[in-house]
């Protein structure tokens, strides 16, 4: 994600003005009503900044769409109703930006259904975005192990899994699942993904810490 300051430096005048207005609308929404009172009036009545969310790439450039959408969510202190609506009514790119930002919002574990939805998807961009810091903090052990396996199945590099080493360390059940998956692949005469061995090594109780993944 690109920070606001860097974005300002990279965007042209028109795009920067658009972003300023969009963020002001988001901030206004955050200030206008406490989260608890921002219940949806109607499914069609979205605050103005949510309409900006879809158009972010067209105004600020597709390469900045994730960053701009993320900034909007943070600036609006987006409540669960907003992130759910933006996810459920979003394109794959809009959904990904929600997933990438969940850990920066004050949502506790209430947004888990969105992560679970993305982990059921076969769109690898969504799967990769779903295994970020929010999943690391909130997925229960069973769901988290399946998320790791899903990455191996769909060839999402496990580098996308936040705090992988941390959560894998000493996880005997994950090790068993990986061993079984490797055996299944071997029996089928198919190669065992390199990433599987990487994760398997991390499940040792005393596994050396992997390169830090801080966010």
């Amino acid at each position, binding site marked *: *994600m*690109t920070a606001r300051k860097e974005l300002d430096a990279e965007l042209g005048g028109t795009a920067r003005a658009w972003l300023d207005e969009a963020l002001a609308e988001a901030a206004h929404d955050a200030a206008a009503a406490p989260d608890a009172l921002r219940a949806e009036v109607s499914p*069609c009545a*979205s605050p103005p900044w949510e*309409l900006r969310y*879809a*158009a972010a*790439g*067209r105004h600020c450039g*597709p390469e900045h769409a*994730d*960053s701009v959408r993320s900034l909007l969510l943070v600036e609006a202190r987006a409540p669960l109703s907003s992130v759910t609506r933006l996810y459920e*009514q979003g*394109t*794959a*790119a*809009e*959904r*990904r930006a929600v997933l*990438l930002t969940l850990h920066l919002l004050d949502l506790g574990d209430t947004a888990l259904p969105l992560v679970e939805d993305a982990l059921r*998807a*076969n*769109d*690898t*961009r969504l*799967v*990769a*975005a779903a295994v*970020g810091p929010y999943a690391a903090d909130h997925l229960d052990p069973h769901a988290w192990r399946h998320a790791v396996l899903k990455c191996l199945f*769909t*060839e*999402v*590099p496990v*580098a*996308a899994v936040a705090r992988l080493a941390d959560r894998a360390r000493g996880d005997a059940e994950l090790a068993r699942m990986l061993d079984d998956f490797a055996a299944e692949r071997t029996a089928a005469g198919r190669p065992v993904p390199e990433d599987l061995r990487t994760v398997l090594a991390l499940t040792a109780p005393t596994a050396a810490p992997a*390169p*830090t*993944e*801080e*966010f």
Partner: protein
Amino acid sequence: MRIFDPHIHMTSRTTDDYRAMYDAGVRALVEPSFWLGQPRTSPASFFDYFDALLGWEPFRASQYGIAHHCTLALNPKEANDPRCTPVLDALPRYLVKDSVVAVGEIGYDSMTPAEDHALAAQLQLAADHGLPALVHTPHRDKLAGLHRTIDVIRESNLPPEFVLLDHLNETTVKAATDSGCWAGFSIYPDTKMDEDRMVTILQNHGTEKILVNSAADWGKSDPLKTRKVADAMLKAGFTEDDVDQVLWRNPVAFYGQSGRLQLDVLTPDPLHEGNSILRGGE
């Protein structure tokens, strides 16, 4: 040879089709929303379909190196079903999406008052969103349907150069081109148009503002008809540049009016854009 199929229903096709299309030269396509062959019974069914056209189907296409865009609308046939018409109220939130390059397919099926309403309302939505419109001409009573369609377009706020009249044939091409709209031809194995008749139309009417599509769907159809037209054009003496105009530059020019065409296919690498999430820790 680069090919842009401006009208094909990929949701009904297999991954083998994507591969064969890529091998034939297809690098971009537009998938219009349409009827599924069986009636939908609620707006929610449309929303799931729209979501697929905005998410899953572009992902599938990208895996085969093809840029996927869509047009969204309430189709003419289901515009007659009161269970489906509330879709019109939800369209504005979909028409703001990046990969939506037109409103469509709209137009007439049986020429009913409900279809009049849906067509006029959706031409206005296109005008409101700065989008072109893909207008299907009816299969039955086509010439009368085309005249009525052109009348409704004239009364709308959408300029004719923002309209593509589709499923045309020898009997409707003149009225369509005289209207100032773009002219689309769907090439099918048995019905509507075939590649040799298409070549004759191009010989008589030129290559300006004419688009050719396969319109392949769940019925008997062929997703490689665009390539077959290109080959037939070359065989009949058209130049490579003529072929490029009809099968690439014309659709790019028409849908490009949306300002939303992205013809570089993003790599399906899941970390292509997600990479940025890792940068902080690397």
